């Protein structure tokens, strides 16, 4: 088993990767997954010439990132699929097939990831369909009833009960990865901020860290803390929004409105720091653009203390109301085994009892020296995902209060160095949904040859579709909101 072990945000030369012949590559990847590693990327290393590919894995137990390279002949991009044995690779293989024309042999269910009018074996792709008496199909979207992003959902139902849900995305595809290769420095940051607008900080953080590794730029400590604080503020804001959405979907207006009010306080704190309610314009290569000062720190403290006080009451109200619990508990279950098998990440994984948190296992930025607690619940239902949000908000508030009151003095920005050639880096951050992976390759001319992004939604949409099995179709909006996944982050 030949693989390269690296750390989060470490700079490596591409030549350090051994590119194996297809059979060996297939075998090594399989052996690595037997040891419990989870796939985070399967991608060509050069967008223009996709015959060299890289498979990247995380092993949370010993906190390593593992990389296996493979080299294919131009005329033969076939390999034996792993997905029958390891369902976690299913979607990654579909993506590789769609983007670069690779052919995973014996793949259980090759389907479109972002393309429309997908042709498979010379036939247009057809949705999975169940036939039988009293089986009916429900099609929803791409445009949905609320102010949300587009996606298409195909349910196979028997009465109220969902037997299968197929999620068809790609409506938001803007060609983000391709644009990264063509853009200037200032464009790239704006682009990173727009991968998903609800995780602006998470993605921009990952992007800046990747570029800083490739340019050997040291980020000042004070800037690291400001970045970490803003990442946690984003987490608090979006968890509040998620809780508000869940309360709204069960028709519980008062908590919904209250969580919404508290979210405004958090995003206005971000606006006090950088002018934008989503933290746009805050991050630059080498640090941050805006510094803390006394009024800003006081504003953040003041807002968080209100939230800390009020949220206790609101949580107690939501989580002790019998009618609410009846809707939340044992709805949309994802068992721990299933979550592990299909490679669910982040909040949804922790709600199903998995120990997945980049901040703990692959610490970056201020998490390297600042301790943080992570929580696991075991039931994997809507209740667990809602409750976990409440717990994580408490912990995030604690960290932010701690960090802003004990921040070190100093610079907030260092100058950016020069890009290393023929190199790559993997940068992972823990956004509010889960792990955000940015992988960046440079060629001999120090230009980007490939930029690969994996939003946590890429893993978790599959989790949502499995959560719906044997659930009443009327619970779909609630299940969907409890995962709260990104369409734009998936579609790129």
């Amino acid at each position, binding site marked *: 088993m030949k693989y390269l072990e690296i750390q989060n945000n470490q700079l490596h030369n591409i030549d350090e990767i051994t590119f194996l012949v297809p059979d060996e590559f297939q075998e090594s990847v399989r052996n690595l997954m037997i040891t419990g590693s989870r796939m985070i990327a399967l991608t060509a290393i050069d967008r223009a010439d996709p015959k060299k590919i890289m498979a990247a894995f995380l092993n949370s137990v010993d906190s390593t990132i593992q990389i296996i390279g493979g080299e294919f002949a131009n005329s033969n991009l076939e390999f034996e699929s792993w997905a029958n044995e390891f369902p976690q690779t299913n979607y990654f293989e579909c993506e590789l097939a769609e983007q670069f024309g690779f052919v995973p042999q014996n793949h259980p269910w090759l389907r479109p990831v972002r393309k429309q009018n997908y042709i498979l074996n010379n036939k247009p792709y057809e949705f999975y369909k169940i036939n039988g008496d009293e089986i009916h199909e429900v099609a929803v979207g791409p445009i949905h009833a609320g102010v949300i992003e587009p996606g298409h959902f195909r349910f196979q139902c028997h009465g109220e009960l969902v037997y299968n849900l197929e999620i068809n995305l790609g409506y938001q595809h803007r060609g983000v990865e*391709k644009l990264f290769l063509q853009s200037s420095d200032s464009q790239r940051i704006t682009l990173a901020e727009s991968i998903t607008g609800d995780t602006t900080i998470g993605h921009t953080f990952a992007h800046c860290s990747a570029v800083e590794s490739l340019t050997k730029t040291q980020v000042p400590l004070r800037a690291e803390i400001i970045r970490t604080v803003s990442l946690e503020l984003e987490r608090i804001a979006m968890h509040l929004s998620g809780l508000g959405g869940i309360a709204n979907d069960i028709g519980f207006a*008062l908590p919904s409105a209250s969580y919404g009010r508290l979210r405004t306080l958090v995003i206005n704190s971000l606006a006090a720091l950088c002018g934008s309610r989503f933290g746009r*314009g805050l991050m630059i290569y080498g640090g941050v653009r805006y510094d803390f000062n006394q009024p800003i720190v006081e504003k953040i403290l003041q807002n968080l203390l209100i939230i800390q006080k009020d949220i206790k*009451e609101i949580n107690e109200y939501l989580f002790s109301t019998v009618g609410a619990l009846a809707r939340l508990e044992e709805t949309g279950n994802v068992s721990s085994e299933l979550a592990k098998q299909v490679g669910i990440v982040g909040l949804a994984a922790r709600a199903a009892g998995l120990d997945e948190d980049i901040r703990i296992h692959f610490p970056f930025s201020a998490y390297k020296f600042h301790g943080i607690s992570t929580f696991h619940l075991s039931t994997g239902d809507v209740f667990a995902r809602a409750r976990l949000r409440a717990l994580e908000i408490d912990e995030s508030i604690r960290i932010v209060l701690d960090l802003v009151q004990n921040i070190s003095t100093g610079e907030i920005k260092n100058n950016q160095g020069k890009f290393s050639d023929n190199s790559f880096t993997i940068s992972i951050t823990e956004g509010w949904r889960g792990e955000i992976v940015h992988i960046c390759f440079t060629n001999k001319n120090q230009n980007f040859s490939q930029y690969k992004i994996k939003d946590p939604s890429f893993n978790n949409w599959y989790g949502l579709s499995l959560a719906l099995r044997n659930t009443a179709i009327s619970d779909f909006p609630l299940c969907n909101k409890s995962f709260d996944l990104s369409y734009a982050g998936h579609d790129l």
Partner: protein
Amino acid sequence: MNQSLKIRLLQGDPIIHDIRNANVSELFHGLPKIEDKECLSGCTACSNVCPTNAITLNPVKIDLGKCVFCPLCEEACPEKIIHFTTNYKLVSADRKSLIIDKTTKQISPEVASEKIRKYFGKSLKLRQVSAGGCNGCELELNACSNVNFDLGRYGIEFVASPRHADGIVITGPLTKHMSLANQICYDAVPNPKVIILFGACAISGGVFQNSTETEREFLSKNKIDLFVPGCPPHPLTFINGLLDWLDRK
């Protein structure tokens, strides 16, 4: 019951009463002010750093339909000619008036036609279409209806079905993959109807101007009623723009 009353009391009075004169963060980037000064000879610093090619030179003009309000130009200018103010009133009914120069003091939309005001002046129901929106614009549109901004008090609301709508609000750069759905949605809205473009992506493609995955023909085929600049636009920008346009107090 006690608990619910307690929470209602905690809620207090969160609504922004005077939405026409509400304050935003001091660092908010709103309408840029372009000083009446000469550029250094041959200087292209601001247009070089602009991520969305919003700036043209000699004289300096900024296209707010492209601008993402990132302040890179303000930082780059050696003569400090560009300065972002906190003025969030940016909405216009005329695409051309979004291109501002040193003479621009403010932007206010022309009042809508009598017909539109007669039909929609007191009640405007909108259907939102996200066509590649990153969820930034969507979150801000949702925020318009929260307890702070409460757009509903003006009779303006988002509805689920295009059949119930008086117009559509488009976010995102109009991806190829959403082009058919967007057209179907627009066709389903009964006449008379309006089109509002929300955010830099919808107005100009924004940071996705050079993407090969967009299909923006819909915008040239139809008359656009209102442009809402920003990345994403602030709820106050949208609400005040709508009220000005509908000639409401």
